[in-house]
C-alpha cells in the first residue's frame, strides 16, 4: 500500500466517529519503488489529499521532505510535485500496523495489504 492510499483510510469501528483519521502507522517496513511521474494526475490530487494528515504521517516515519503547508504555486512547482510523487506514489508500506488515534483499534498490514475487516461486534 502506498501512502496515497493510507491518506484515504479511516477507522470504521462502530461508534468511532471522531478523531479516527489519520491512522497512525506503527512498526512499519517501508520500501521505495520508482514509478513514472504524471504531473496532471498530481495536480488533480492536490485538492483531494488530506495534506496536514500526510505531513504528520510522514514526520512520524522520518520522511521530512514535505513542506508544512502546500506551496501556493504547488500545481506548477516541479520540485514540490516531485517530492509529492515520491512520497505518495513511490513509498510503499510493506508491513506493520495502523492504529486508530481515537479507539486504538489496530489494523494489520501484511504483504502490503491493510486488513480493514472487523469482527462482528465491531461493525
Amino acid at each position, binding site marked *: 500500500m502506498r501512502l496515497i492510499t493510507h491518506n*484515504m*483510510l*479511516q477507522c*470504521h469501528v462502530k461508534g468511532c466517529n471522531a478523531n479516527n483519521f489519520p491512522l497512525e502507522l506503527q512498526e512499519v517496513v517501508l520500501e521505495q519503488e520508482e514509478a513514472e511521474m*504524471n504531473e496532471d*494526475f498530481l495536480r488533480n490530487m492536490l485538492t483531494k489529499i488530506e495534506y496536514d494528515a500526510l505531513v504528520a504521517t510522514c514526520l512520524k516515519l522520518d520522511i521530512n521532505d514535505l513542506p508544512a503547508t502546500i506551496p501556493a504555486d504547488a500545481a506548477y512547482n516541479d520540485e514540490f510535485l516531485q517530492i509529492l510523487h515520491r512520497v505518495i*506514489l513511490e513509498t510503499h508500506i510493506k508491513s506493520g500496523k495502523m492504529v486508530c488515534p481515537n479507539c486504538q483499534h489496530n489494523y494489520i498490514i501484511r504483504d502490503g495489504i491493510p486488513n480493514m*475487516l472487523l469482527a462482528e461486534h465491531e461493525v
Partner: protein
Amino acid sequence: MKLKELEGYLQDVAVFTDPKIKLEQYPTTPHLAARMLYTAHTTYDDIENKAVGDMGCGCGILSIAAAMLGSSYNVGFDIDPDAIAIAQENCEEFEIEMDFILTDLSAAPAPAIMANGEENARGPYEMMKGKLDTILMNPPFGTKLKGIDMVFLKKGIDLANHAVYSLHKTSTRDHILKKAKEWGVECEVVAELRYNLDKSYKFHKKQSMDIAVDFLRFEKKPRPEKRD
C-alpha cells in the same frame, strides 16, 4: 491500443485457483473486461490519468485493463485475501502499480446519523468519496446473497467522483434503472453482452453457460449551481 490487442493481453491474467461459491467468484472474462475498459477509455475518457477504484476486484483484471489504458492510480477492494494474493501476482506480472484493501463491501450502507447531523461513516473507505474518479466493478449478482449487487452498486456510486462502470444481469435492468433515478444518477445501458461462464462449481450441470448481462455506465450529475 486496439480492443483486440487489449483482450489478447488480458488472456494472461491468472484467475481464481479455488473459487469461493459464497462470494460468487466468477472471473470476469478477458473479452468482457477489454470491452468495458476500452469503451470507458475511448468513448468517455474515464480512464487515462484517472484515479480508479475496483470494487470486489477479485484477481484484478478490470484494474489491470485500466492501467494498461493509462489510469494513474488503482486501488482494489476485496474481502478475500486469496483473491488479492492472485491479483498482486498478476500486477507484478503486468508491471502495474495497484493497492489493495482487504474489506467487506457486503454490509448494507446504514444511514446512521451522528449527533452533529452528518451521516456516520460506515466503511474504512468513506474518505475516498469524491477522490476516485472512476469506479469499476463486476459485482456478485446476488444469486447467493440476495440484493448484494445493489449494495455494491450503491457504494460504488457513493465513492465515485464521476462515473461507475458495472455488469449486471439483464433481468435486473428495470430495477436498476428505477434505483438510478432514485439515487439521482444517470444510467446508460452501454451494451448487452453474453457472460460465458465455464463450469466453475460442482453444482453447475452444464460445462459452460451464457447469461445475458448489461454493461452499465452511471454518471453523477454535477451539483446544481446555487442561485442567489
